[in-house]
C-alpha cells in the first residue's frame, strides 16, 4: 500500500483524475490510461482512493482537540509475488499515469524519482487476510476455464458411473491441455526460505508467548480488568448515518458480485487501548496466515482479501476488504457468524457499540453496529477486480474441481461428490 498526502489545492483535480479511471461510478475501466490494471496479470484486486475521514472530530468524545489530518492518496492491491518487484513493475510500465496521479501529492515534482517516492511512501499492514494462500490470478483464471470446459464436457458425456466420468474427464483435460485449449500450471514449489520463515513464525509465536506467559498473564489480567472498566464508560457514537453519505457509498456498490469496502476511524486514546488493538491485529494476522488460509475467515467465506492498516502514528486505523454480496449481507454474515471476532477487531475504534470483555455484545446491537460501520466507511473511488463475476465460493469450487481432477483415482463416493461440483 502506498499513502501520500494530497496537496490541498489539487484535491478537486485529483478527484477528477480518479473519476476518469472509471467507465461509470463503481465500474472501473480496466484499461484506463492512468493505470491499466488489466495489463498487470499479478493483480487480484486493487484500488485508488482518497483517505478522507469525516469522523476525525469523534476524538472530542475524549476531550481531545480534532487533529488536522491531510487527505491521502491511497493505492493498494493484493498481488501475486513480492511487493518490491510489483512496485518496480508498475513504476516501469505505468510511469506516466502514476506520475500524473502522484503529481497531486506533497513532495512530488516533475523531477521526482517515482520509484523512490513510491518506496518511501509505502505503508505496511498490521493484519492481512487472504482467502486462499498461494492461489494466483493465473490459477484463478485457469481453474475458471477448467470449470467451464468440464461443465460443457459433462453435458455430452454419458458415463455409467461417476468414476467413469472422472476417468474420461481426466482424459478430456489431458487432450485439451495437449491441444493448447486448457492450461493448468503446476503449482510452483514453495521457496524453501519462505517455508522455513513461515514455519518459524507458526511455531515461534506460540513459543514466545509461552515463554513470556508469566509476565503476560499478569499484564493481561490487569489490562483486561482495566479495559473492562473503560468499556463501561466509553462513549458510543452510532447515530444514524447521513443519508447523502450513505447514498454516495451505495452508488459505487453492487456492480459486480463482489464489492469493495474501506472504513476508517480514530482509535481510542491511551497506551492500553493501543496495545490491545495491536494484539488483536497481531492475532488476526497470525490466525489468517496459519489457520484461516483455505477459503474462510472463521465461518465467513465471502472475503477475497482484507487488511488492517495503522495510520498517523497509530492514531487512526483503516480497514480494507473485498467481499461477495451486498453490504447488508456481508455485515449480517459477520454479526451472526463471527460477532466475537468483529468486536475484537474493531472495538479499538472510538464510538464502537459497547462491548463486554472485548468480545461480547458490541455488534450484536446490530443496528448500532451497521450505523457505526456505514458512518466510518469512505468511498473507494477506483476499484478493480481481476475476475468479475466470480465469488470466493466460486473460486473454492473451481479449486476443488481441479484437485479432484488431478487425483488419479477416486472412490465412487468421492467421484460422485466431485461430479456434483460440475
Amino acid at each position, binding site marked *: 500500500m502506498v499513502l501520500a498526502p494530497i496537496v490541498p489545492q489539487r484535491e478537486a483535480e485529483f478527484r477528477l483524475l480518479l473519476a476518469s479511471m472509471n467507465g461509470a461510478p463503481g*465500474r472501473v475501466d480496466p484499461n484506463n490510461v492512468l493505470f491499466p490494471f488489466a495489463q498487470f496479470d499479478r493483480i487480484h484486486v486493487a484500488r485508488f482512493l482518497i483517505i478522507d475521514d469525516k469522523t476525525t472530530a469523534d476524538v472530542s468524545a475524549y476531550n481531545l482537540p480534532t487533529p488536522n489530518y491531510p487527505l491521502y492518496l491511497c493505492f493498494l492491491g493484493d498481488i501475486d509475488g513480492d511487493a518490491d518487484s510489483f512496485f518496480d513493475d508498475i513504476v516501469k510500465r505505468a510511469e506516466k499515469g502514476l506520475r500524473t496521479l502522484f503529481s497531486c501529492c506533497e513532495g512530488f515534482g516533475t523531477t521526482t524519482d517515482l520509484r523512490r517516492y513510491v518506496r518511501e511512501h509505502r505503508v505496511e499492514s498490521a493484519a492481512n487476510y487472504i482467502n486462499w494462500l498461494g492461489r494466483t490470478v493465473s490459477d484463478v483464471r485457469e481453474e475458471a476455464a477448467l470449470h467451464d470446459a468440464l461443465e460443457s464436457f*459433462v*453435458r455430452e*458425456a454419458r458415463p455409467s458411473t*461417476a468414476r467413469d*466420468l472422472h476417468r474420461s474427464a481426466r482424459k478430456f483435460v489431458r487432450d485439451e491441455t495437449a491441444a493448447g485449449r486448457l492450461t493448468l500450471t503446476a503449482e510452483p514449489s514453495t521457496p524453501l526460505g519462505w517455508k522455513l520463515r513461515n514455519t518459524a513464525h507458526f511455531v515461534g509465536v506460540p513459543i514466545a508467548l509461552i515463554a513470556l506467559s508469566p509476565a503476560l498473564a499478569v499484564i493481561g489480567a490487569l489490562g483486561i480488568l482495566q479495559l473492562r472498566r473503560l468499556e463501561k464508560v466509553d462513549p458510543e457514537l452510532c447515530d*444514524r*448515518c447521513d*443519508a447523502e453519505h*450513505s*447514498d454516495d457509498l*451505495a*452508488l459505487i*456498490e*453492487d*456492480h*459486480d*458480485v463482489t464489492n469493495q469496502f474501506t472504513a476508517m476511524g480514530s482509535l481510542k486514546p491511551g497506551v492500553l487501548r493501543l496495545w490491545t488493538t495491536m494484539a488483536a491485529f497481531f492475532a488476526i494476522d497470525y490466525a489468517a496466515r496459519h*489457520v*484461516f488460509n483455505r477459503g*474462510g*475467515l*472463521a*465461518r*465467513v*467465506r465471502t472475503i477475497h482479501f482484507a487488511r488492517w492498516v495503522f495510520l498517523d502514528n497509530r492514531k487512526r486505523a483503516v480497514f480494507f476488504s473485498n467481499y*461477495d*454480496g*451486498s453490504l*447488508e*449481507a456481508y455485515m*449480517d454474515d459477520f454479526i*451472526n*457468524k*463471527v460477532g*466475537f471476532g468483529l468486536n475484537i477487531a474493531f472495538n479499538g475504534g472510538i464510538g464502537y457499540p459497547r462491548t463486554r470483555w472485548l468480545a461480547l455484545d458490541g455488534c*450484536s*446491537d*446490530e*443496528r448500532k453496529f451497521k450505523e457505526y460501520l456505514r458512518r466510518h466507511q469512505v468511498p473507494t473511488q477506483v476499484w478493480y477486480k481481476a*475476475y*468479475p*463475476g*466470480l*465469488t470466493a*465460493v*466460486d473460486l*473454492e*469450487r473451481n479449486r*476443488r474441481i481441479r484437485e479432484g481432477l488431478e487425483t488419479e483415482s477416486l472412490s465412487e463416493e468421492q*467421484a*460422485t*461428490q*466431485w*461430479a*456434483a*461440483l*460440475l
Partner: protein
Amino acid sequence: MRTAPVDYSDVQGLVRFGYRKMTQAAYVLVRVKSASAARAWLRNAPVTSAVTMTPPPPTALHVAFTSAGLRALGVGEKTITGFSSEFVAGMTSDNRTRRLGDIGNNAPWRWEWGGAPNGDDLPHLLVMFFAEPHDGGVEALMGRTMGSSWVEAFTIVRRLGTENLDGVEPFGFADGISQPEIDWNEQRDVTAPVLDYSNVVALGEFLLGYKNEYQKYTERPLLDPSPATESLLPAQDAPQKKDLGRNGTYLVMRQLRQDVRAFWQFVMNASGADAAAADRLAAAFVGRERDGSPLVSAQSRTIPGIGTDGDSIRLNQFTFDGDPSGVACPFGAHIRRANPRNADYLGHPTGLAKLLAAFGLGRAAFRDDLISSVRFHRVLRRGREYGPGLTPEQAVRPAPPNDPERGLHFICLNANISRQFEFLQNAWMANSKFSGLTGESDPLVGGREAIPGCPVTSDFNLQTAGGVRRRVSGVPQFVTVRGGAYFFLPSLSALRYFASEAVVKSA
C-alpha cells in the same frame, strides 16, 4: 416473562390474521388531495384491530402510509426521518434497484405505479378492504367505508382488485403454506444460539417497539411527550419517550405479474411434452408439489411453531438438513431460497464441536455453512392473487386475444425492511450465487439480467444422486414487477395521532 402481552386492540388485525374467510379483497392506492379531509376520513375510518372476536367480523379495513404520505398528511420531517432509512427513501431509490433485482424488465420506470420517486403515481396511502363474500362483499364495504368525505380527501392512483383462487397461487401451487409464528408473549430466549431450526420468531421482528432476534429494539420515531402525542404508548426502552412505531410495522407491497402461460409452456417444452415430467420439473422449481407437499420428506422431530396437526406436519415439519446434496429438493428451488430453514450452526454441534464450528473449523462439504441463521430474515406474507385463474392444462394452450393479466399483490410485514425483506430478495431470491450455485436466480420470481462476468443467469440446476447435475437452460423470466412501495402500517394509536389536527401543530 417480564413484558406485558401486546394490547391487541392497538394492533392492526392484518399483523395477526390473514383473513382466509374474507375471500374478497381490494387494495386502493391513493394520494392525499386535502390533508385535513384525509385526516378527517382517517379519524372516522373503522380500522380493524387484532382482537379476536366471536363470531369473527365479516369485514376488515386496514391503512398504511408511505413516507410521502406521512408528509402529505402534515407529519413533520423530524418525525418521518425517525423511521428507517429504507422507508424514508422508498423502494425505488437509485441504489436499491440493483440490490432488489429491479433492473431490466423489472426497472421502476416501467412500473404501472410507484416507479418514480416523486411521480404522480407514487401512493400516499394503501387502504385495504377485506370482506366475506356475502352482504355485498368488498364492494359494499368500500362504498360504506369511503363515504362522502373520501372524494374530498383522496385521489385514487390504482384500485387493485384481487381474486380468490382457493388457496392456490396463479402458477397453480398451494399458496401461503409456510409462515413464521410470532412469539406474541415473548417466551423464547433469543440470547441463546438456536441449534435446531425453529419457526417461532421474536415479536420485535414483526412489530416495532418490542425486542427483536438480537434482543434489541428496531429504530422508529420516539417523540417527546406533548398533548399531541398523548394517545401514543411509551417506548419500552425509553419510557420517557412516546413510541410512534410501537404496535406498528412496515408493509412491503409489490405487484408481481405472473406469466402463467410462459411458465407451463416452458416446463412442458423442457420435458418433451410429457405432462407428468413437466409437473415434476415445475415442482422442482418450487420445491413443493402443486398440493403443497414438500419434495423433502417430513422429519420426526417436531419444529417449534409449525402446528401439530397432520397437515402442518406433512407440509411444514421439514428442514433441508437431510438433503445436503440437493437431490430431493434442488438448492435453487424457490422454497429453499425463500427460507433455507436452518439454525445458527450446522448439524447441532455441542461442546468442543460447537467451539470448532464457531471458528469455522471442521467444515467438510463445499456448501457447508454457507447460509445460516434464517431467524434474522423472516417475513410475514399477506399477499393476494389477482386476475382469473388458469389451470396448467389451459395454460399450455396459446393465449387468446386480450388475455387478462394475472399475478400476485405481494405483501409482507417486517420490522426491519433492509434485514428482512431486502436481504431475502437480494441475498436469497435474486442472487445468482446463492448457496454456491452459479448462473441461476430464483426459478419462479427471479429476473434473468446478466451481471458482469456472468452472462447467464437463466439456468436452473437439478442436483442428482449420480453427481452430475441436470441443467435446464434458458428459463424465461416468469414474474415481472409492476409496482411497489414501502409502507408503514401504524398501530391504531399512531393512526389516531396521524389523523389528529394536532399532528400538524406538533410538526
